[in-house]
């Protein structure tokens, strides 16, 4: 289990856990970040800056600050 900032780009990732306060969790939930959901890290993320996450089911992109990305725990899905 790694957090989103440590995850490799362009590989399918499964959300295992979302940590952090309920305010942040609620906001992430409303944007489709649920447990077991499949996402992908976009290569266009900025070094040391925000990352870009692609939701594979709904085909949307969400920008996340690093602090928030660290709270999302994922595992790499073997294809």
């Amino acid at each position, binding site marked *: 289990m790694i957090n989103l900032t440590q995850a490799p780009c362009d590989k399918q990732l499964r959300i295992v856990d979302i940590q952090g306060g*309920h*305010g*942040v*969790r*609620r*906001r*992430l*939930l*409303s*944007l*489709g970040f*649920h*447990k077991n959901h499949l996402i992908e890290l976009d290569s*266009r*993320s*900025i*070094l*040391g*800056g*925000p990352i*870009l996450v692609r*939701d594979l*089911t*709904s*085909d*949307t*992109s*969400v*920008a*996340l*600050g*690093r*602090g*928030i990305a660290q709270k999302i725990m994922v595992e790499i899905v073997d294809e």
Partner: protein
Amino acid sequence: MRLLTNKNRYPDIIFIGQPNSGKSTLFNAIAGLKAETSNFPGTTVEHTHSKVNVEGKILNIIDLPGSYTLNPSDEVENVALKHLFVEKPDLIINVLDASILGRSLELTIELIELGYPMVVALNMMDLAEKKGIETNVDKLSQILGVPVVPTIATHGRGIKELLNTTLKVLRKTETVKPIRWSKDVEDKISELEQMIPSDFPIVQNKRFTAVKMIEAEKLLFDKMLLEINPSLKKGLDSVRKALEERHSAPAYEVIAAERHHLALKIFEESSRVTRRRRIDWLERIDDIIMHPFLGYLILLGVFLAFFIIIFEVGNPLEELLLGPLNSLRVYLADNLGRGLLFYLTEGLIQGIGGGIAIVLPYFIPLLFLMSLLEDIGYLARASFLMDTFMHKIGLHGNSVSPFILGFGCNVPAVISTRILESRRDRIITSLLIPFVPCSARTTIILALIAFYLGPLWALGFYVFNIFLLGLLGRIISLFFKDPSPGLILEIPSLKMPSLKNMARKTYVQLKAFAKFAWPILIAGSVLLALLQFFHLDRFVNLFLSPLVEKALGLPQELGVTLVFGFLRKELSLVMMLQALGVNYQELMSVVSQQQLVVFAVFICFFIPCLSTVAILWKEIGRGVALVSMALNTAVAFVISLVVRLIFKL
């Protein structure tokens, strides 16, 4: 109650949808097409109303801010929830983005739980088709239990069918039934439903109230319930606990997951995805715009072009409008004499004309370009790119668009801080906005510094201004213990802009500005004209002379211009010449270079103008407005002194 009022009022139709679903485009297409009375935003820009006539029947349509869910913890989404609770609409039009149907349906499911009559507008059908998503509209309608109408708002397609369906549904009084979730969750919900006493304020149906109670975990509602009805709170807690234990997740997450899974299931049952590809050329453009290096170059280019266009359009327009205004003043001076009547009319003209000739020429192109950047989806990308820099001043990417708006006018910039989800970010951003040089202050910088000292000085002033903004941000954020919550922002897919939509957006924002700031401008100008007529300006100069003469080393006559500056920044410029009794070309014969820079610096940074203070007071609170005034004055004072010292060396 409803029966009594029904005869005399028009049915309320609410437009609601997730952000970027094209909801406002659809609303504007309908309101713009058949608007009977004009569109008026509340001064708060909370929602837009319009009355439309559909085949002889008048409907009162209301556009609510985009919301992902009816989550009561978010300030913007609270507006939507409150409206649904208090105003009880006659019908809901839920606008969906068909190209991301799976996620959009989550809000639909939640709205259906409310039980109000409802119509779904399946929007952006063209985009969905390009993405290879085929939705069986009849099947979707059958599963949801409400009519579904496919639309393409940008082309005006499907709007007639949508309105006809709306009328049809209004005539029937069928209740909408919620779609059932997993049995164990449903059992717990009905268990809680039984506990709700009959005198409890119910919104439409008991099930919805029960669900919302479970979801309100850790929010203000819980504390209130504990005081009002402790036994119900106890029952609620036990229901939550049972859900938590069974699903090993907080109860509100269990509910959210139920909706999520249901939405995906409905999506799979109603739609077929033939090829999962984004449009190639758009993706390629996106790659360049968001590129970690090229992206910043483009961002810089966009901002430069942004300002060049605004000044290229604004400058000639301003001259064009100022000319007749000046002739009118000369004419009035000749014909009205120098009596009270002249001063009053002159004040009135200054107020009305200042708004038209000085603010609008820059403000309209700015609003228009802003809506273009927003429409094509660039604003979200700029926020993404700027996030790292904003972190350095204690904020994050979401504050970027209020700052950009601030270059036009600080007033709408303060209003737009509503998009920030945390109060901390809102306060810091609002305190920094008055340091963003608005179009009025840019006029001063151009007219004083660029004209007399050269354009490089003006550029230097701008660079210093932005540096100061960053420094202040760092200092202000030291006063807040919690760090900024960080960026969570959906990046919508790039879209072609719609001219009609941009014009509409500009118009609505312009009207909000005119309603709020203009009256203050006019009243201020008239007041100052009276001050001059009764020669009270001498006392003002005398009173301010310790500051103006002793500390800043400026001519005493400039004291009154500071008061003008508080009412309207650019008035200081006009009054400066008048106070010193010289014309524009002769200015340098009565003031030194140093005095000129000190004056410009002080005027630009001291107290935000009256309209800005008023909007800060109204939007963020009295405390913040007062702090803002003190902070600006202190900063202006210190920098002016430093400038004076540097010139002495």
